[in-house]
């Protein structure tokens, strides 16, 4: 900003320096924009070259597969309710995976967050360690752990649950510790002064302050985890994703099943999104008033 203590220059001086400043900014902005466009274009070309089919060829065929599936499903529309009923248990398994892993992740994430926040940690010296742990947990994509565990335990919901829970613990650990930073430490000190143990201090001093935010983040995580558990099913971890892969592997003739699964998955995601969005809205607004 302009230096107020200096003698004010003439209007034209100020004007000149302003114009110069904006021009310089514009040049920088232009260079950045060109660089950005070039990067995007180069990236697109590389991706296009390394892909099996090219963008221009595939673009016209985007809707071929959906129309094929929907067309066949439409012909057998009478079977659809039966299919939906048939795949409902798989859907429930997918939701169970997401819910259980979210719950486990919330508990683990709470501990990670409390142990890695200054002023709340049980062992202040180990704060960096717990931060790194949650960083690493967060960085591991679910599929890595899921595939390794599938090798050890065989296919099924448990590998997916463990994999998602670990990632959730890391992600929530970070978010929760950000929430913790904003919490007041006075209740903790007060409880400390009357001789409360660490667990009591956290349970009575911290959790009531951060509870609504925790729940809000946990709900958001639940939305994400439903998608994740569907994807992990696709690589062999049970649930609706597994059924989807099977019915897709059958190809034509079983597209009505694939369509039923698409529908189930779509509506589940939309419904969960709506409910959790509504709840989160209420939580944040409730906290504000």
């Amino acid at each position, binding site marked *: 900003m302009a230096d107020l203590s200096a003698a004010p220059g003439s209007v034209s001086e100020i004007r000149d320096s302003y114009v110069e400043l904006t021009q310089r900014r514009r040049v920088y902005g232009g260079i950045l924009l060109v660089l*950005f466009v070039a*990067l*995007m274009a180069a*990236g697109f070309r*590389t*991706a296009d070259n*390394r*892909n*099996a*089919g*090219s*963008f221009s060829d*595939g*673009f016209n*065929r*985007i809707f*071929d*597969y959906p129309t094929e599936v929907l067309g066949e499903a439409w012909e057998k529309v009478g079977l659809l309710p039966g299919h939906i009923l048939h795949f409902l248990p798989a859907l429930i398994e997918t939701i*169970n995976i997401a*819910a*259980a892993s979210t*719950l*486990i992740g919330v508990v683990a994430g709470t501990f990670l967050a409390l142990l890695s926040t200054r002023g709340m940690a049980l062992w202040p010296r180990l704060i960096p360690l717990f931060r790194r742990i949650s*960083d690493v947990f*967060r*960085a*591991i*994509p679910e*599929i*890595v752990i899921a*595939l*390794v565990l599938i*090798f*050890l*335990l*065989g296919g*099924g919901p*448990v590998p997916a*649950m463990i994999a998602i829970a670990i990632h959730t613990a890391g*992600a929530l650990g970070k*978010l929760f510790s950000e929430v913790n930073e904003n919490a007041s430490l006075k209740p903790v000190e007060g409880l400390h002064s009357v001789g409360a143990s660490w667990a009591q201090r956290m349970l009575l001093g911290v959790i009531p302050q951060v509870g609504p935010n925790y729940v809000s*983040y946990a709900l*958001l*995580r639940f939305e994400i985890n439903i*998608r994740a558990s*569907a*994807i992990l099913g*696709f*690589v062999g971890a049970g649930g609706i*994703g597994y059924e*989807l892969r099977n019915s*897709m592997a059958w190809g034509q003739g079983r597209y009505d099943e694939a369509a039923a699964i*698409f529908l189930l*998955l*779509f*509506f589940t*995601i*939309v419904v969960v*999104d709506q409910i959790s969005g509504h709840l989160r809205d209420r939580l*944040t607004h409730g906290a504000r008033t």
Partner: protein
Amino acid sequence: MTVLSTNTGLEELKQEAELLFQRKRLFNFGLPALVVLYLTYVFFAFDVPGLWSKLSPDNAYTLVSDSYSYKTHVTRDNRDASVSVAIEGERKGAYPEGEAPSWVTLGETTVIDLENGHVVRFGPETIEYDVPGYGLIRATPDRRRGVQAELPAGEVPDWINVSKNRLAVTTEAGRLTVTRSRSEVFRYFMGWELFFFTLDSPYHGMGVGELASRAATGEAAAIFNDFWTNKMWRHQDVAWAILETLLMAFLGTLGAGLIALPLAFLATRNFMPIRTLRFTMRRLFDFVRGVDALIWTVVLSRAFGPGPLTGALAILVTDTGTFGKIFSEALENVDQKQIEGVQSTGARPIQRYRFGVIPQITPVLLSQLLYFLESNTRSATIIGAITGGGIGLLLTQAIITQKDWEEVAYYIVLIILMVMLMDWFSGWLRRRLIKGDEGKKKKPKGTSKAKPFVLP
């Protein structure tokens, strides 16, 4: 709450307080109880007790031991008595004909020194294994009569497995298997084998100092080439795979941002007067978001085939919905006064948007884009595993072979490093860019609270 009303008696107040406490207690104990109940249900629904029977300790042992150690196979073909040495038993790691590591002495009788007194001899007819503290194990493979094993007197210990056609001896020094057609010795070593150079490279087994001096005298390109084209670890392919994964995340996220920004204007109450169009736009965003990345990946890979482009497009399509929603919410919260101020200077509509609206939503926009860039790096790994591109594909391939666990460990380390690096980079960029806007330090915090849609 009700304390203010004057005519409530003390008793009544006390009762009320007690009731409140009771309710709170019920809530505080009821909720955890519900959670525990649910987890118990899941525990049995997922058949966790039955999991122990499914757990295969052999697999676990191979996985763990293979990820930090490797074995060298010394194999004798029992039909023509020829002996070959190969790391991990792979052709890519085979020693050239007539060559062997120093602990194997080739000859009429091949002597394999497993150290600590363990010696295996591949004789012209008979295989011998001298186990210190136990005695000499002899086995003669024969095409017709199977494997004839001669063990020292006494009970057969459980580390020796004898049957008519097979002898297997497992000690801490190594492992010997003799079948009709071949005899094989495994010796285990720590570390990842041939990580830098394969056996056919002249630089295999050289120290760092010698390599550095050779590199200084003009062999740097050759050394790098041998490393880069290492057949065992395929450094070149791995680097490309990581690049592909990052490319998917980059193209997908930024492409989605570019498409979603103009569309988001159409979905806001304050910029889009036509109600039906607004409504359609919002439903479109919801639809695209609801059809999960999984389904988009499946659909798009039918059209574009496997590869990074498909992954990028799947991310792009899904995130267009997400960004459309976030951006339109941010646009609905913009301050109208700033726009009016710009308008009062005689700005045209385009200028009004450019100087009145965009600066207000830039912090939200940038921080969301960067958050998603980081989280999409992870998604791209997963999508890559499904659609066949990037490091996700390499990882699944390595896991499917069920023996290259050292490669799996390597890829996992790379993936974690990649994601952490992206996390750090996007955080750094976010801080720089958003703090760079003078006086807006507080903004991202306030906006992120108003919009709990922030992804970790």
